[in-house]
C-alpha cells in the first residue's frame, strides 16, 4: 500500500514522515519518529496517556491518524521544557511528588498545560474535571491536583 507523505510542525520544528493510512498519530510519534514520551495506555481514547495538542487543541493521539497531520502543528511532552529549563508544571510535579510510576505523567502534563493556557486560575473542581480524561492508577490524583494548582499560582505571579 502506498504511504502518505506528510509535512507538519512538531514541537516547533518542521517534520516530514511517510505513513500508512491506518497508522495513528501515536504510532507515528512513537514508532516512526522515535518520540516515546507520548504513551499508549489504551489506544481507544479512554486513558489520556497519549495526550498531545494539535494546533493548540488537546487531543488523544491514539484517536487521530498520522495522515491527517498535513500542515498541522503538533506539541508533545518532549517540547514542553525550554532546553534544560523545565516548565513550571514539570517542576511542580517533581516538587509535589505528583508522579509515582510516571507513565501517566506526560499526558497529564500536556493536558494540564492546555488547561492553564485557557484558564490560568482554575478551581480545584475545574482541574479535576479537566483532567477527568487522564487516568492515573498510582496517585489517587491528590498530588497531581495540588501540583497543577500550585503551578497555576506561580505562573500567574510570574
Amino acid at each position, binding site marked *: 500500500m502506498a504511504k502518505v507523505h506528510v509535512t507538519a510542525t512538531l514541537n516547533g520544528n518542521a517534520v516530514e514522515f511517510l505513513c500508512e493510512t491506518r497508522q495513528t498519530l501515536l504510532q507515528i510519534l512513537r514508532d516512526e519518529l522515535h518520540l*516515546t514520551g507520548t*504513551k499508549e495506555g489504551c*489506544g481507544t481514547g*479512554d486513558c489520556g496517556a497519549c495526550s498531545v495538542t494539535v494546533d493548540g487543541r488537546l487531543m488523544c493521539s491514539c484517536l487521530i491518524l498520522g495522515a491527517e497531520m498535513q500542515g498541522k502543528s503538533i506539541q508533545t511532552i518532549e517540547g514542553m*521544557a525550554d532546553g534544560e529549563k523545565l516548565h513550571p508544571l514539570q517542576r511542580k510535579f*517533581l516538587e509535589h*511528588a505528583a508522579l*509515582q510510576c510516571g507513565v501517566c505523567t506526560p499526558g497529564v502534563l500536556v493536558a494540564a498545560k492546555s488547561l492553564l493556557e485557557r484558564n490560568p486560575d482554575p478551581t480545584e473542581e475545574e482541574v479535576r474535571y479537566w483532567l477527568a480524561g487522564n487516568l492515573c492508577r498510582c496517585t*489517587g490524583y491528590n498530588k497531581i491536583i495540588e501540583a497543577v494548582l500550585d503551578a497555576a499560582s506561580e505562573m500567574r505571579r510570574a
Partner: protein
Amino acid sequence: MASVIVHPEKELKVVGTSPLRPDGVPKVTGLAQYGADFSLPGMLWGKILRSPHAHARIRSVDTSKAQALPGVKAVMTSKDLPDQKFEYVGPERVAVNFWHMTRNIMAREKVLYEGHAVAAVAATTPAIAEEALKLIEVDYEVLPHVIDVDEAMKTEAPLLFEDMITRGIDPPPKEPSNISKRIEYKMGDIAAGFAAADEIVELSFKTKPVHQGYIEPHATLARTDADGQVELWVSSQGHFVVRTMVCRLLGIKTADLRVHAAEIGGAFGGKTVVYVEPVAVTLSRKSGHPVKIMMSREEVFRGTGPTSGASMTIKIGVMKDGDIVAADALMKYQAGAFPTSPVMNGLMCGFAPYDIPNVRTIGYDVVCNRPKTVAYRAPGSPISAYAVESTMDAAAKKIGMDPLQFRLKNIAKPGTQLVYGAKIAHEGFAETLQALQRHPGYTKPLGKNQGRGMAVGYWFNGGGESSATVHVNEDGTAVVATGSPDIGGSRASTAQMAAETLGIEYERVRPIIADTNSVGYTQATGGSRVTYATGRAVIGACNKVIAEMCARAAKIWKIDVEDVIWEDGFARPAGKRAGEFPPLSFKDIASKRTATGGPIVAASAINADGQGPGFAAQFCDVEVDPETGQVKILRYVAAQDAGRAVHPKYVEGQIQGGVVQGIGWALNEEYIYDRNGKLENPGFLDYRIPVASDLPMIETIIVEVPNPNHPYGVKGVAEANIVPPMAAIANAIENAIGQRLTELPMSPPKVLAALDAEHRG
C-alpha cells in the same frame, strides 16, 4: 498531612525529608524509557493469538498460512515450549507450578478462558503480525464453562482439569472437582466461644474480581544470540523473577539470560509473573531477530491477572461489654484458570487486627474459566477485610458501641496470638486507631443522606532477599546499585538512606537499578518490601564503605584502624590517645583512593525478616443520592503506621493511591461476562477506574511507631492502605441508608435496590 510520632528518635538529616526524586526529570520530560519504549535494529513485532472461547479443547492449530505470509519471520505455539514437571514449588502461600505456568503462557490441551494465548507470530511490521494472526487456524471443541466461585464448586460444574483432586482434605476426595485446595486454621474452642457470646452476628458477602489497572500495558523486548545468550528488557516488578521463570520455562542457563528492568508504568502485583517475556524470547530464537511484544489494553483485561472474586461468610460472637469471644470465617476465592488464589492470605489477615481467643478460618481455592489471578496490592487481604470489617460494624451496632471504640477494645498487641500460628511482634495498631479517633472529622455531624464508616486493615509486609552494591567515586559521590525495580519512588528512599548512613548529601548519591548480571539476586518489588529489605542491604553496604573509609584514614594517618571513628561523614581520630589529625571527609578519602588501596566498593546482601506488619485505619463520609443510587465520597481520612516515613510525600502518595484503588473496587470496578463467558468490558471506558472528578482530597495521617529491626525504623507502606476502603465505604453507606450492602461493587443499581428494600419495609 498530619503526623504522629510515637517514639521520637535521634535527629536524622535526610531520612524524613521529601527531596526530589533522582529519576524525576526524565519522567516529566518524556525521556524515561518504559517497557514499550525500547527498540533495536532489525527488530520484529510480536503478536499473540488469543482464544475466543471461555473453555474449549484444542483439536489442532494450523500455522502454515501465517508462516507463509511475506514479512512473517517466526510463528510459535505451545509445542515450542518444553513441558514442565507437575509440582508445586516455593512457600505454600505463594507456591507456583510450572506445569500450570507454561500452559498459562500458551494453551496446550485446552483453552481455559477467553483471551488465553494459543499462538504467536513475529513479523516485520505490527500490521503484518496482525494479519498473520488471522491466518492461524485453530480447531476448537467448545466446552461448557463456569465463572462464579459458588457455581464452580458445585458437583455438576464443568471441570477445568478432569483429574484435579482437592488438596488439604484427609482422606482425599475420590472425585475430581474445581476445588484445588482446602485450608483451615483454628485456635481455641470455637463452639465454646460462640456458646458464651451475648450476641452473634453472621453475614455473607460476595466480591467481584478487579484488575490492578496499571496504565502501562505489558511490554517486552528480547534479543538472542546464536551462542544462546539472551537479553531481555522488561516492565516487571522483579527482573530477577522474570529471569528465574523464563530460564525455567525455556531451559536457559541463568547466567545466559540478562534482564534489564525498564521503568515500569504501574503494576500493583500484576507484574510479578511472566506473560509476553518467554514468548518474545522464543520468537527471537526462532527468527534470529530482536522481538518486541506490546499488549493492547484489551489483551491486558482479557489475558492478565485480576485478583479473585470471592464468596464469604463471617460469624462473630461478642459480649455486651464489647469483647469478641469467637470468630469464624468461610472464604471461597476464585483462582482463575489455574490454582493458587490469595485465599491463604485472606484467611490469615482477616482477623489479624484483633485479639480473639477462639478463631477458625476455612478457605477454598477454586479454579474457574477466567484469567489466572495474580497478586493485587496486599493480595487477598482486602477481600477478607471487606467481609470481616463489615461484620465487625454490624457487631458493634448490635451491642450499641462506637465502631472505632469496639475495634480499639479488641485490638491486637505485641504478643497477641494469631490464628495462623504467628504472634503479633510489633506495636502500632492501637496507636494508628487512636490517631484516627483524634481526627476532628470523626465526630463532625453529618447531613441528610450522609453516613460515616470506618474500617481497619492488616498486611504482613515483606522482607526477603535483596542485594546492593555501593561504588565510591573519586569526587566523593557514590553510586548505589540495587536489584529492586522502582515503581513509586524507591530510588529516592534508597538514596536518602544511603546519604544518611554515609553522612553525605542526598545529591551526591546516585541510585540505579542494575540488571540481573550486575547486582546480586533481589526479590520482586512487592509485599511492601523494598524500603525495608533492600533498604537494609543498602545500609549494610554503606556501613562496609564506612569501615573501608576508616581503614583508609588509618593508613593515611598511620594509626590503627581501631583508633578511627566515623562521624557525620568524617573520619576522626578516636580521642586524644589516637593522635591529633584534622578530620578527613568522605570526599578527601575518596580522592586518595589510588594511593590508599584502590577502588572503594562494597556489596551487601540480606535475607531479611523482622519486617513490621502494615496497619491502616480509615474512615470516610459518603452521601447517597436517593434518586440515582450514586454514592459520593465526601471525605476520606486514612491513617497508617509507616514505622518511619523515609520520604513522607511518597508515603502519603502510597496511602492516597491505595485508598483510591479501594474506592474503585468498592463502587465501580467489576468484570462483566456474557452468557458465553466472554468479557464484555475489556477497556477503561466500561471497566471504570476512579477519575479525578470522582474524588475528594484523601487526607492522610502518617503514624510513626518505629520498627526496631530497621536502622531507621521503616515499615512497608504500599499495601495496608487498600485493605480497609471497601468495608469503610460499605459501613458508611449502611450508616447513611440503614441497609447493609453485602456485594461488591456497590454500584448505583445495587444501592437503589437496597433503598427500595428499605422502603418496602
